[in-house]
């Protein structure tokens, strides 16, 4: 609402709706997300939170409505690499260590100048487990092994599907810290969660999903 006309919103949805076999999954949905903004996607089970994130990531086809990316009609290729998607499936190879998994992700997506991979793994709380095959880690540690991408990979928009699941209290605080830092440097994020979450930076934007 207060977004200056000079800078279009990073992401804008107008009357976005999705159908599965002609059954409405969600929508029509309108929202804007500016740089530096973190929004919480709320809704009951089956309200289409995951579907929304998958559409925004470019994994699903936009069926109805309009999506704009940096003020222009949304195109998958235009936003590739500028978006980081973290879904239910963590995208980790069980036979590889956290360090090796991270190296593959950095090879595909590129990486920030700092922190280095070792530093990132330490900060995410996997010190001492870097070279353990991921399948031997606990559920929370696996989640951290996936979340470490947030530290290392360059992306403006984070799409995080249930990032708090399986995490302990320090883990949740860690994610909140990452989000705050991301917002401070101009990044944006859409986060789904059905648990009550308090952000460090006070009340977040909320997007309510309804079928």
């Amino acid at each position, binding site marked *: 609402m207060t977004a200056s006309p000079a800078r279009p919103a990073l992401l804008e949805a107008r009357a976005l709706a999705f159908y*599965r076999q002609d059954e409405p999954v969600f929508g029509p949905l309108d929202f804007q997300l500016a740089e530096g903004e973190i929004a919480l996607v709320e809704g009951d089970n089956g309200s289409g939170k995951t579907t929304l994130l998958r559409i925004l*990531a*470019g*994994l*699903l*086809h936009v069926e109805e409505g309009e999506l704009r990316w940096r003020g222009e009609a949304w195109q998958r290729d235009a936003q*590739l*690499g*500028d*978006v980081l*998607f973290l*879904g*239910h*499936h*963590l*995208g*980790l*190879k*069980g*036979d*590889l260590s956290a360090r*090796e998994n991270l*190296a*593959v*992700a*950095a*090879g*595909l*997506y*590129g*990486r*920030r*100048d700092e922190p280095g991979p070792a530093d990132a793994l330490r900060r995410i709380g996997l010190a001492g487990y870097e070279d353990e095959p991921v399948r031997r880690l606990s559920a929370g540690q696996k989640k951290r092994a996936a979340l470490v991408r947030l530290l290392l990979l*360059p992306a403006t928009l984070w799409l995080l599907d249930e990032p708090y699941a399986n995490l302990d209290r320090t883990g949740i605080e860690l994610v909140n810290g990452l989000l705050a830092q991301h917002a401070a440097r101009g990044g944006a994020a859409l986060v789904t969660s059905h648990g009550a979450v308090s952000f460090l930076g006070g009340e977040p934007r909320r997007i309510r999903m309804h079928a």
Partner: protein
Amino acid sequence: MSRPPLAAACAALLRRDLVLAWRRRGDIAMPVLYALIVATLFPFALGPEEALLQRIAGGVVLVTVLLAMLLALDAMFRGDIEDGSLEQLVLAPQPLALMLAMKILAHWITTALPLIVIAPLLAGMLHLPGAAMPVLLLALLLATPLLSLLGAILVALTAGTRRSGMLLALMLLPLCVPVVIFAAGAVSAAQQGLPWLAPVAWLGAALALALVLAPLACAAALRIALDA
């Protein structure tokens, strides 16, 4: 904070798939073992008469290798789909077709190459004349990547389904008919002392075409199959 170089991405993916295959070395051995078993069964079924085995050796080795590859084909993307790695790959700022080509290459190295290595052994067990052996290997070197590439398109199409073993065989059969015909044709021509270059050239031409087109088709198929 720039786009990662293409070569680094290709190398990272190829390295990942090869390391993964190496950590599960047992799985690499399975198709080889399977081919060995199938080839061993033929003399039992047809009798050990050398002239007969000699006549069928080339075709049997080719079909055996094809079946063994089919067995391993299903696994090309399944692991990546189950753990979400494929989503990450699709969303990476890299040309998907090229990334898939790397995966197909890794798959060919880990399944077809071992089969080619033991092919002379299988052919020897079936008394294939030594003169035809180089032609058999050449035919396999051209036919197996072709099968990997064609198979990858089909595997990508079945990516959204649960189990696809039989379906994959049904879908692959029409596509591999020409491959089998030309590969076996070359071997049997060499065995009869006839010129065998023409069928091998056809295989080579088909491979060149598939190298360019199949990864693109595979990427398109994957996008269709995942869009749900």
